[in-house]
């Protein structure tokens, strides 16, 4: 593989990796509020700015609501714009999430996935990512620190693309990725990235010589057409996202695709998972394969837009699908990822047996023993939902 940018291998935690990516993207405006487990990101970026290494405006806002509000303003004004948050912070931004995507901004947000209160908890659940799932943001899930770095750079390129123009969230599991140090390869300097990610050329940006009215009031006579247009545009983004994946591969030597499969093609049982647990599941599946179990793992790098066709295609002939949700959707037919997978299969005429596994809430460590519990559950045809690793 021909790599263009000069790269170095070093050890960073996930937050530092994201901060480096934003720094290497030569971001113009950072608008953020501290919240565990994301805080390291904004601390590192503050250092880059305060030490004069990054020419950017760091808006140290007074709340996450204002963090995203200011980011919307900055993005509309043409700046490459970054923010980061987690959990309650994302919840406080919620109102503006929809506005940011509907106004077709190009904000990139790192989300250090963390459980919602109460009880207050600082560790990993996917509550926050799921809460944003309908908001019109492209969502990537990083499995490791390398991916957190790469996907942040990819997210800028995707979100600012004239064929896309939707904001992105890069999810990284709180503590498991945000605070763990791993080896990764990053570009040596922000200069190295320019060829892949040139300065932003904003479309329809705020400009006194072109007075546009952003965010008007639209009533029933037009609202639906505006939403239909947004829906069509959003749903067509994966084509461009895949192209950007390829461009990044050419540039960095690291390849990405909307979903990752291990042994899925001939599997009887497939585990579907998001985030850092994918690696643990691959390790388990390799072990089980040696025992003759026909098992596989499917993990999603692209969570929104949900790659329905690819997921249905990959899973259509699988007997039992275990969909792992690191969150609970109270009162709904299943967890959030479970509903996505079920709907995707249904859309393509498949009615496989699905089991919903709820795991790892609030940072409960997902251990090999819990993986064994899930495999065991697949043997009992009556089981449709299990909470793995819960006492009682």
């Amino acid at each position: 593989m021909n790599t263009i940018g000069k790269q170095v291998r070093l050890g960073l935690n996930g937050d530092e990796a994201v901060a480096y990516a934003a720094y290497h993207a030569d971001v113009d405006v950072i608008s953020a509020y501290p919240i565990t487990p994301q805080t390291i990101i904004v601390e590192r970026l503050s250092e880059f700015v305060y030490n004069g290494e990054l020419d950017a405006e760091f808006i140290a806002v007074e709340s996450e609501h204002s963090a995203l509000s200011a980011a919307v303003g900055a993005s509309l004004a043409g700046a490459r714009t970054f923010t980061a948050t987690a959990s309650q912070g994302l919840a406080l931004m919620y109102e503006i999430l929809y506005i940011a995507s509907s106004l077709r901004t190009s904000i990139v947000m790192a989300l250090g996935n963390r459980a919602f209160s109460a009880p207050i908890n600082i560790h990993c659940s996917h509550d926050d990512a799921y809460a944003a799932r309908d908001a019109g943001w492209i969502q990537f899930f990083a499995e490791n620190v390398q991916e957190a770095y790469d996907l942040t750079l990819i997210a800028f390129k995707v979100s600012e693309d004239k064929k896309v123009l939707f904001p992105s969230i890069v999810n990284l599991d709180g503590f498991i990725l945000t605070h763990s140090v791993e080896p990764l390869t990053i570009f040596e300097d922000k200069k190295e990235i320019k060829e892949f990610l040139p300065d932003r050329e904003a479309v329809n940006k705020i400009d006194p010589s072109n007075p546009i009215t952003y965010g008007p009031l639209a009533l029933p006579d037009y609202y639906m057409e505006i939403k239909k247009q947004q829906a069509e545009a959003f749903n067509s983004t994966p084509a461009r996202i895949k192209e950007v994946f390829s461009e990044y591969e050419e540039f960095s030597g690291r390849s990405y695709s909307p979903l990752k499969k291990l042994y899925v093609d001939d599997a009887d049982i497939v585990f579907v998972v998001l985030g850092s647990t994918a690696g643990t599941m691959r390790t388990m599946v390799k072990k089980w394969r040696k025992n003759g179990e026909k098992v596989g793992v499917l993990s999603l790098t692209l969570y929104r837009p949900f790659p329905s066709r690819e997921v249905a295609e990959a899973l259509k002939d699988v007997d039992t699908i275990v969909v792992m949700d690191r969150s609970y959707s109270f009162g709904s037919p299943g967890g959030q990822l479970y509903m996505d997978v079920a709907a995707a299969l249904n859309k393509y005429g498949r009615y496989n047996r699905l089991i919903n596994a709820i795991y790892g809430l609030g940072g409960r460590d997902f251990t090999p023993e819990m993986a064994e519990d899930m495999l065991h559950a697949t043997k009992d045809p009556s089981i449709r939902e299990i909470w793995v690793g819960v006492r009682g």
Partner: protein
Amino acid sequence: MIEVRWHGRGGQGTVTSSQLLANAAIYEGKYAIHIPEFGPERRGAPVRSYTRISDEVIEIRYGVINPDIVVVIDPTLLAYKDIILAGLKEDSIIIFNHTDPSNAKPLEGYESYAVDAYHIAMEIIGRPIYNTAMIGALVGVTGIVRLESLEEAVRKRFSGVLADINIKAVRRGAKEVIKVE
């Protein structure tokens, strides 16, 4: 793959130790992961941290359950055997901080090593910060990374005088650690 579990108290550099070890391994071209365990801990509370080192990609992301090596940074934690010995395998080794290593006893029959990190820290750093001497001891006993790699990691983490004295502590820890019989 080698799995290390660190025991210390908040403020003693338990997390930093694990991080330095992982970084040292990464500088050698190995794969490594440092996993801190975070709670609401404040200065003084018992904390754990984990390091995995391997020649192959590490994909698992859970905390270390069955460590090959346990490092006890704070000597007072030795009293909590159920915590220190949890999940140990028959051939796991324990490296602990002890003010009188030659009179120390192996822990519950496990292969044990002791180093007087307290005095090393007080003599070199002037404050009871034991962690760099303890990482030195770990490397001295096991050789899982080269001492030079660890020193590189220390130098990148600290600057100036702080780096120098911590490297001194690492070297003394590596040299002075002894097997407890």
